[in-house]
């Protein structure tokens, strides 16, 4: 019984034969006795989840009125005019401001029985399929003009998909992230026959070649790249010590020397703040924020009753965080954003029938 298919066939038959559905004496009574005295969750949570399905953004706070928007726009215009005047008066041009561009995320699609990548404006409007078919882990290039989906690079408008070399010997390369100069990708690598090869590999973003091994998992599990530091000298990554336990590590790109940032178990790959000062990662029902050397660790809670959340990404301007979250009581993630201080939670997608994950936020390429 060595063929994988045989193992799978026998497993199905074995489970069918051995699954024990019997109910123990008193088991139902114990459950009912435990629940009868407990209240269900408050109605505010249910009402939060029962709003009509929409792909447009919904601010959880009080919405601004139209006159307020007009005043805000006039104020912004005045500030912009003043800023331009000051800059020209000083005989120098201000650096181009970082403008938040579109977001991407994966959504489970039953028709392909897998994840399909979608793209949208950061308020959730104009959500549409970015790339038909099954794909995962989309990552914007630093200039916002391309998106890597594992070892495939596609223009941000969905055109010109280019398959990169996704093997290094017997190692298969998977989810990847861009270096800040846009020249290299750091990719998760694994060898199904020799797990000692598992680790992160650096390859050319143009063709997937010139591979350099950056990390060695050392335990036969996975190292999954998260985000480069803005100066490109370090890479934050998720280091799995078992199938279910992972910790946050940072590796020096030039030397390959890695170090654990915090001992806390974390659940997602890290994201690096655009100013280089913070690493952000999720730890189940809350986020952890700390300096890249592990100092000043802080818990960042989401202002909602959270089931599970994950995959946080800083916005390009560093003011907001994009993430997915399943509110307590749901088994499906939606996409949200909030300010970096945990306020102003905004629901970006509201799709109770499908789950969403694999988030990233690009700059506006214009």
């Amino acid at each position: 019984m060595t063929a994988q298919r045989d193992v799978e066939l026998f497993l199905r038959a074995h489970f069918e034969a051995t699954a024990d559905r019997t109910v123990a004496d008193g088991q139902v009574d114990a459950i009912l006795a435990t629940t009868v005295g407990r209240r269900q969750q408050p109605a505010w949570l249910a009402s939060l989840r029962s709003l009509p399905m929409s792909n447009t953004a919904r601010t959880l706070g009080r919405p601004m009125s139209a006159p307020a928007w007009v005043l805000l726009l006039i104020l912004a215009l005045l500030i912009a005019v003043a800023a331009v005047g000051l800059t020209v008066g000083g005989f120098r041009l201000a650096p181009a401001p970082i403008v938040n561009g579109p977001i991407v995320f994966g959504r489970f699609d039953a028709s392909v029985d897998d994840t399909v990548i979608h793209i949208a404006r950061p308020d959730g409007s104009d959500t549409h399929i970015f790339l038909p078919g099954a794909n995962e882990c989309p990552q914007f290039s630093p200039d916002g003009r391309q998106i890597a989906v594992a070892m495939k690079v596609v223009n941000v408008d969905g055109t010109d998909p280019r398959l990169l070399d996704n093997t290094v010997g017997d190692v298969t390369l998977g989810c990847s992230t861009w270096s800040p100069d846009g020249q290299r990708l750091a990719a998760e690598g694994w060898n199904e026959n020799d797990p000692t090869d598992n680790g992160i590999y650096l390859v050319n973003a143009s063709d997937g070649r010139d591979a350099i091994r950056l990390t060695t998992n050392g335990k036969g599990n996975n190292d999954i790249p998260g985000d480069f530091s803005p100066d490109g000298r370090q890479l934050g990554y998720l280091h799995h010590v078992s199938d279910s336990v992972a910790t946050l590590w940072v590796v020096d790109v030039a030397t390959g020397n890695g170090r654990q940032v915090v001992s806390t178990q974390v659940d997602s790959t890290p994201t690096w703040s655009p100013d280089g000062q913070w690493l952000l990662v999720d730890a189940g029902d809350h986020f952890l924020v700390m300096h890249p050397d592990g100092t000043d660790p802080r818990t960042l809670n989401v202002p909602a009753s959270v089931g599970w959340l994950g995959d946080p990404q800083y916005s390009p301007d560093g003011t907001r965080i994009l993430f997915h979250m399943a509110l307590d009581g749901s088994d499906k993630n939606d996409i949200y954003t909030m300010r970096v201080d945990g306020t102003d939670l905004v629901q970006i997608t509201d799709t109770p029938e499908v789950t969403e994950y694999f988030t990233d936020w690009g700059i506006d390429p214009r």
Partner: protein
Amino acid sequence: MDRELVILAREGDHDAFARLVASSIGRLNAIARLILRDYGLAEDAVQDAFVDAWRSLPGLRDPDRFDAWMTTLLVRTCQDARRRARRRAVELPLLANDDPEIADHHAAFAVTDQLERGLRDLTVDQRTVIVLSFYLDLPIAEAASVLGIPAGTMKSRLHRALTALRATVDADDRPIARTAERTT
């Protein structure tokens, strides 16, 4: 699963919830026992899942998703049960209720026995991905969603779990070689 019962339970009708418990507890017991392989831990996990469900039911938007939602809650409580009881877990063999429908009964018993031992040697995480894939027949992305992990990670976990299981079964097929190995 009765949609009307779910709606009533969601609105706070505990009798309706009791009927949902009665109708789904057998299926959930089977899943928890296959994952945890400890009847006591499995019953605790199922109870915790139902307590979570009663608390969280007002947030369940689609009543038709009740079964899938309960499965997700149960898998999470199984993970919690494993963490709480890591030091005291005693794994018990599951009893077969029926013979699998395989023509060669001698071979079937041998395979069942091998699989039983192989499954027992896996970690709870490995058994979880196998149960989600081959007992519940969930697609990779759905199973990944239940566990809150990327689909790629789910694929590699499943691959490793099956490889570990196959290695155990193959080792069982080579008793002489194993004995010789031990004596050298």
